[in-house]
């Protein structure tokens, strides 16, 4: 805190009184100042959303799960091979781990035990 205040005072003439006034206020600017100083919460990016959800949008757009449409052109950034692979993986996992397929998951565990024994004896 001392370093932060010294930088603020040295560079921008902001003293401790200015900071106290801001933090004790209830306006949005004061909340923002308090968040910045304490570093307690990730700031939201303007126009979009927080960094984690922006990251989720990046991944889903890149994998082709979300698409962008343009008027008169339809979908402009489709990625069929990526989307199909993701769907096939999800279908496989869903089919094996389905509630109605308890025998499947039990058998897979037995195979896993066999494989563990086999790999530990061979390597």
């Amino acid at each position, binding site marked *: 805190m001392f*370093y*932060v205040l010294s*930088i*603020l005072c040295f*560079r921008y003439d902001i003293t401790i009184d200015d900071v106290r006034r801001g933090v004790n206020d209830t306006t949005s600017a004061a909340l*923002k100042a308090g968040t*910045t*100083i*304490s*570093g*307690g*919460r*990730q*700031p939201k*990016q*303007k126009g*979009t959303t*927080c*960094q*984690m*959800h*922006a*990251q*989720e*949008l*990046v*991944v889903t*757009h*890149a*994998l082709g799960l979300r698409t962008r449409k343009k008027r008169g052109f339809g979908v402009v*950034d489709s*990625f069929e*091979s*990526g989307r199909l*692979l*993701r769907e*096939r*993986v*999800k*279908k*496989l*996992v*869903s*089919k*094996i*781990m389905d509630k109605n397929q308890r025998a*499947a*998951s039990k*058998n*897979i*565990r037995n*195979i*896993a*035990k066999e*494989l*563990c024994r086999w*790999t*530990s004896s061979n390597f």
Partner: protein
Amino acid sequence: MDVIKLLIPNETRVSGVFTMYESLLRSMRCVNNYCYRSAESNLYEDVVLTEAEWTSVAETYALLKITNRLAMTSQIDNIDANCFSYFNVAKTRDSLVMITEMGLNVLDVSATWAPTLEPSLIPTVTKGYHQLELATQTLIGRLVKEYDTYFPFPDSDQIQMMLLHPVMVWKGLL
């Protein structure tokens, strides 16, 4: 014996996709053996993955591993994580760009490993950019493009935090 589960992601979880790929690759041999060997194997004819598809899954997993680091660091609540948030974005984007020169570490799908083995201990091979599958090369380009779209430059909050961070000032980064 500790045997892992195959996890299905929730729609809103960014790391869920990564976890699903990871758990499936760890249990790759078991799933393949089961789908081919079980008495009801005809049930799995339409869902079982081919060798080429497993390679694609391994390459996609390697790319998601890079992007997943950012999702993990952006959820940490401390002042350092906030101050370095844009640097983490730039680092992730540069790691993706550097694949064209340095190559990518991909799980070796031809090897055999126990399903209880930790993911970091599974054998890998380094593939050059041109050895990767065409879909993976396209995916790298798409990820870089999306990072440029969603994180074009640091916003005012991030710049403010970088200005206030003592390490940044001492090192003369700004």
